[in-house]
């Protein structure tokens, strides 16, 4: 059975379904008896989604306008 460190070290292959069946069993056994690691897995899994929300960037209309004008000027001369 894995300890906490081995479990956390293997989270990426675990979440992507790339672990060997044997290692996955070791990890699941650990998670069954370790609530803090279950919370860790849940929060690790949620991290990317929260970051996506925090890092959304939108394009200001004036930048979109300049992009359009730039492309027209470049492409009309071709």
């Amino acid at each position: 059975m894995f300890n906490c460190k081995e479990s956390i070290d293997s989270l990426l292959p675990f979440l992507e379904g790339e672990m060997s069946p044997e290692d996955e069993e070791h990890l699941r056994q650990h998670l069954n008896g370790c609530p803090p690691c279950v919370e860790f897995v849940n929060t690790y899994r949620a991290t990317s989604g929260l970051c996506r929300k925090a890092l959304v960037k939108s394009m200001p209309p004036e930048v979109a306008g300049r992009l359009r004008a730039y492309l027209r000027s470049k492409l009309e001369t071709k």
Partner: protein
Amino acid sequence: MTQTSVEDDRELLARAQAGDMSAFEALVDRHEEKVYGLALRMTRSEADAAEIAQDTFLSAYQHLSEFRGEAAFGSWVHRIAANNALMRLRRQKVLDIVSDDLAGPEFTDRGSLAEVPESDWSKRADDKILDEELGRAIREATDALPEGYREVFLLKDLEGLSYEEISEMVGISIPAVKSRLHRARLALREAIDAFYKEV
């Protein structure tokens, strides 16, 4: 992007390849937000992001005839934009900073978690509106990542590129990409956990 949008893109692409400028402009309309967002996240500069968007769509137009449509048009311009952003960062020589002091969980000698997570805040990730303070904490933590980790995290978790694409663009092996991604996620998870400890 939905299946219908991808099909619409194919139709627009075919018209653009036949020389219809308005069809190409419609493709720009559909994908400029995503391209600009990627460039801004990567470079953290509005001026650079605007130039990258210009270069990306100009390059896409110049290579339209070579695009065979095996991939979606959106994925194609997205990869061009990512390459342009990385090249710009390389020119600014900010890519080679890799550090070993990334935050992450601490363990006891026996490999147990030294500190129990603050709480299971994962369900809050489903909230539609992100707390403003949390958003700021995440942006600061992302900015604080060593550049080699930040770019891999952004390209994978924000832009959805494959490990193979990132490995090729960044010039490191796939296991190295995965290792950087994992450590970046751990550092960001740690920052979010610290935020919830304080509130």
